[in-house]
């Protein structure tokens, strides 16, 4: 099964009804797959921080949603994450494209610092993060989502390589 379908099925198992997102290179083929989902609706935004605000509104409205953005977009979103997830305690699952992850592992000179700073920034905000790199790790999405709900906070799943 293609990785995009694995993720779609895992999100459907979690009961996710809305995915608020801004496209990125790690998730480019995911769009076509998620469009086929009978239960998940996509909400596109212009800026990653806006994804957090729309997600917060969906949650307040009683819907199950998640945020799908790239690592540089996560960096854009910090103040909204602080307010909505730390101050308001709105459970938030962040699916974050880990652009540059494999290059970083292989010791290649990074194109930019988005991969290098991602985990330290999440750690600084107290946002627990899991990796989704091998297909078996798709279960981390459900695990992170349940943890976000139970502890009323944000959790992140870092997507190590592109969907196919």
């Amino acid at each position, binding site marked *: 099964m293609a990785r995009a379908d694995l993720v779609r099925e895992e999100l459907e198992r979690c009961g996710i009804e*809305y995915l*608020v997102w801004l496209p990125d290179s790690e998730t480019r083929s995911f769009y076509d797959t998620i469009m086929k989902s009978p239960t998940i609706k996509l*909400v*596109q*935004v*212009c*800026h990653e*921080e*806006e994804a*957090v*605000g*729309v*997600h*917060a*509104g*969906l*949650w*307040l*409205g*009683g*819907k199950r*949603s998640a945020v799908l953005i790239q690592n540089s977009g996560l960096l854009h979103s910090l*103040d*909204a994450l*602080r*307010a*909505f997830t730390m*101050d*308001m*305690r*709105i459970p938030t699952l962040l699916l974050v494209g880990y652009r540059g992850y494999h290059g970083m592992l292989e010791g290649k000179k990074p194109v930019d610092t988005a991969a290098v700073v991602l985990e330290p920034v999440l750690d600084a905000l107290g946002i627990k993060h899991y990796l989704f790199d091998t297909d078996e790790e798709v279960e981390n999405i459900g695990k992170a989502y349940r943890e976000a709900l139970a502890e009323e906070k944000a959790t992140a799943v870092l997507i190590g390589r592109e969907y196919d």
Partner: protein
Amino acid sequence: MIIRPEALKVLAKHRTNEAVIPAMMAAWEWPAYSTRPELDFPIRILMGHNAGVGLGVALAHPERKVWVLNGDGSQLMYLGYITDIANARVKNLILFVFQNGQYEITGGQPIPLEEELDLATAARGLGIKNSYCFDDLAEFEARIPDILRQDGPTFVNLKVVRGGSVKTPKPNVQETIRSFMAALQSGE
């Protein structure tokens, strides 16, 4: 120019079961006039995002109208929300932006372009075709019943005078979340 609390009183008079999400000065003032506080979600702890919260609530509850009450400096930070709202084609959302040309909450420093800023035209260009601008309370009061009845999304820019604000006590965020969610689910 309009006195902001006077415009809020007009909206309060027309409100039935709309969810209202005010930010910045409107978040301080709206509770003084609101008749359905359980359906209010005032945001005082960050700028710019009440339009996004409004979009989420509007998507979650298409049967209920949602009014977002924003400030000009706050809206200017996240103009993209206007396109997000237009793109989502939510018929049940009205975005009101009070324009006083300043960051009133931080001491009255000017926003870029101040009163020159044409937010109603910007909103139209960003995708919300039903876009209005008022600088006269009587005209606003005369036109608002029709505007509230029409399908959205709708953008209403209100040119308001600086200052004259009414302060209300700071609400408990967790209690506000609980009562707002329960009121939305009740369907009343």
